[in-house]
């Protein structure tokens, strides 16, 4: 059990002050301190903190609207809180722009750190700070891509309201059935659906490739599988094509 002796320390400071006064030693006033402090405050940490604030804003924004975004609502209800697809599109778009901006900002800071002449320790420290910010961003992106995956899946399902749909759902969606309230996966898709799937997939792949290829793929795959299956697997160095195939294959 740790013991907080901060007060004891402050008391020691007083003791020393008193003792010094008695001996006649004085110390400079505190104005030097304030002056020094403002000079040494670097721009780097301000900016890093700014990026974090922005990411938090995005996170709050997504979480705030998450319920409405995900909720299916029934087709016949005239629920006022029901979100339109247009609104959802807007959220998606805004989120993507935001994520891209944040990612750019991090990249920018990184290259600056590289270029700047500074002691090795400071560079290492700043690199690690940016790693932390990036991890935070990734976490928030996951929130976005999870809810987007739900939405896309629902969009595709809506296209196929075939009554004879009674094949058992593939295990791919098995564990996420509870999240997605309606429909089960069919084994067959009409040509238009295939086309739509393909274009949605490629759109996602293109639009969602925010960071490096590696993490871009991660986001794409996550948005299809709600982070259940692939989120842990980092496909290092794989080409996009293999994944395009994988996604389409599994969707069949």
């Amino acid at each position, binding site marked *: *059990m*740790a*013991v*907080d*002796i*901060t007060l*004891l*320390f402050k008391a*020691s*400071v007083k*003791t*020393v*002050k008193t003792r*010094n006064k008695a001996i006649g030693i004085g*110390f*400079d006033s*505190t104005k*030097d*301190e304030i002056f*020094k402090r403002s000079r*040494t*405050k*670097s721009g*780097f*940490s301000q900016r890093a903190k700014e990026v*974090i604030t922005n990411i*938090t804003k995005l996170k709050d924004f997504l979480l705030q609207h998450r319920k409405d975004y995900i909720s299916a609502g029934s087709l016949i209800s005239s629920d006022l809180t029901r979100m339109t697809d247009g609104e959802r599109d807007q959220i998606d778009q805004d989120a993507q722009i935001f994520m891209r901006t944040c990612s750019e900002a991090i990249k920018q800071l990184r290259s600056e750190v590289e270029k700047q002449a500074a*002691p*090795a*320790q*400071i560079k*290492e*420290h*700043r690199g*690690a*700070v940016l*790693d*932390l*910010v990036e*991890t*935070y961003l990734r*976490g*928030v992106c996951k929130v976005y891509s999870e809810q987007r995956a739900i939405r896309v899946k629902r969009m595709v399902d809506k296209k196929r309201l075939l009554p004879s749909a009674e094949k058992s759902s*593939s*295990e*791919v969606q098995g564990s996420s059935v509870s999240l997605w309230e309606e429909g089960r996966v069919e*084994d067959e898709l009409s040509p238009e659906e295939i086309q739509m799937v393909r274009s949605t997939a490629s759109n996602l792949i293109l639009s969602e490739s925010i960071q490096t290829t590696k993490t871009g793929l991660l986001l794409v795959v996550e948005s299809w599988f709600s982070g*259940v*299956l*692939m989120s*842990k*697997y*980092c496909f290092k160095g794989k080409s996009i094509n*293999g994944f395009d*195939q*994988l996604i*389409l*294959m*599994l969707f*069949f």
Partner: protein
Amino acid sequence: MAASVREKQTVALRRMLNFNTPPLKNTAAEPVWKVLIYDRFGQDIISPLLSVKELRDMGITLHLLLHSDRDPIPDVPAIYFLMPTEENIDRICQDLRNQLYESYYLNFISAISRSKLEDIASAALAANVVSQVTKVFDQYLNFITLEDDMFILCHQNKELISYHAINRADLQDTDMEAIMDSIVDSLFCFFVTLGAVPIIRCPRGNAAEMVAVKLDKKLRENLRDARNSLFTGDSMSAGQFSFQRPLFVLADRNMDMATPLHHSWTYQALIHDVLDFHLNRVVMEEGASSEPSPGGARPKKKSKKSYDLTAADKFWQKHKGSPFPEVAESVQEELDSYRAQEDEVKRLKSIMGLEGEDEGAISMLSDNTAKLTSAVSSLPELLEKKRLIDLHTNVATAVLDHIKSRKLDVYFEYEEKLLSKSTLDKSLLDIITDPDAGTPEDKMRLFLIYYITAQQAPSESDLEQYRKALLDAGCDLSPLNYIKQWKAFTKMANPANYGNSGVKPMGLFSRVMNTGSQFVMEGVKNLVLKQHNLPVTRILDNLMEMKSHPETDDYRYFDPKMLRGSESSVPRNKNPFQEAIVFVVGGGNYIEYQNLVDYTKSKPGRKIVYGCSELFSAAQFMKQLSQLGQK
């Protein structure tokens, strides 16, 4: 002790690294960064408990040694974790004067004195940075936890409190006081962290008794100090359901000198014996083969590889106490099962390459999708498994090399027979004179065990014979001088009884292993241990079960919570203890630890923790004996 001491120490460290506030469960919180500054003591405490990755995850961007060149990073808070020594305090003051960081969180491993605190205060005042010293804490973490049930006092500077330091002939009273104070400080921190005040038992007339007396005094004083007591109700964690206090048994190394020299047969003990293993880290040379380089050419520089053997390594947790043949078998099994899984994943991966239009492919898919996704989802686990298999293959291979080249199975078996006073099937002299069996050190170890356990000292002529043989084999005989002294001095009424152990040899390894087997165990004896209690275990058993035994009846009894200085030998408590901590003053090893672990398994519901002032391998212990014998 609902949570182990390892968990408690880890929790304490995490809190410290979170600016001395309990960390939030919410992992999606904004990152806060900081740098960690430690001395070598702090490093040794942290490294078995938190990996570099875990430090990073907690927001630590840099971790640096206190006494190193450090650049100013004026916009980051710094967390310090170090011992309150003179040099450390000076360096802190220097950092303050140089205004290295934005703010300072000072954490002292053991309590800092008032005067040193004033030194820091003074430097802070002079540099005008008092407001930047945000928090100062006494952490009471001055011990190193290696396992859930094992701890040591220190790793750096352990020679200051080593067996040699305590037992040397020229030891002054002041030296002894300092050593005892150091040991007691660590033990005090241990009980503070554990959140329990133990009942203390110790033998009479040795260092263990000195430690007991001082520890009792320190605990007693702290309990009486109502304002500053560290053992208030708050410190007892909520999960603690045991109303009984733990038993704390102090033992002195001198009561069992054979176990530290013994050759081992279980995985963890072997690693510690034959490889370079400290603080749960093994350091080995890559591609270790002991062939000398051809004709005078400069030997190729072998790279060193280090492996951390952690709590998360399931194979390690399962097998660290297993006899080596079992380990070899299990690694082989893991390798085989991994290869089978790998093939399956490869097969499924190749299916991915098929075009979606193919009818056959589609139908195959609906069955295989499930398999693929489950295989893929377990891929990271598979990769981790592979890493651990590689690790243990390398480590076990290195251990096996030693076993084979030094014939450690022969030594182990013979020593077990010596310890259990079973009949010996070959003569000691044969082993000593055999040039293929073991290093000179191995032979010396064997001989010393013989000498220690002999009921009657060998005759002069026999001794001469042994001496000559040992010298011929290249042994250093100075440890023997000390052991002779020790034997004469100790002259215990009951010489250490090692119980009815026994090794059941199951013949040589005739087991047919696949040609693909990593481990060629031919010629190595497949020995199986029978459970027996080493002296420390036996003593613990007596005291925990409240058994009467001449060995322990005379032990002293301390209860720091009792109002009057209790000095009775009569224990108040009639019921057996459920929890105990055994601590060996003068050093210990993994064999002793493993023996206690095995004993605990046979007593369900009991919790036993093993501690020692230092952990030494047989080689290190021999070195100390050698120094002691050179007077």
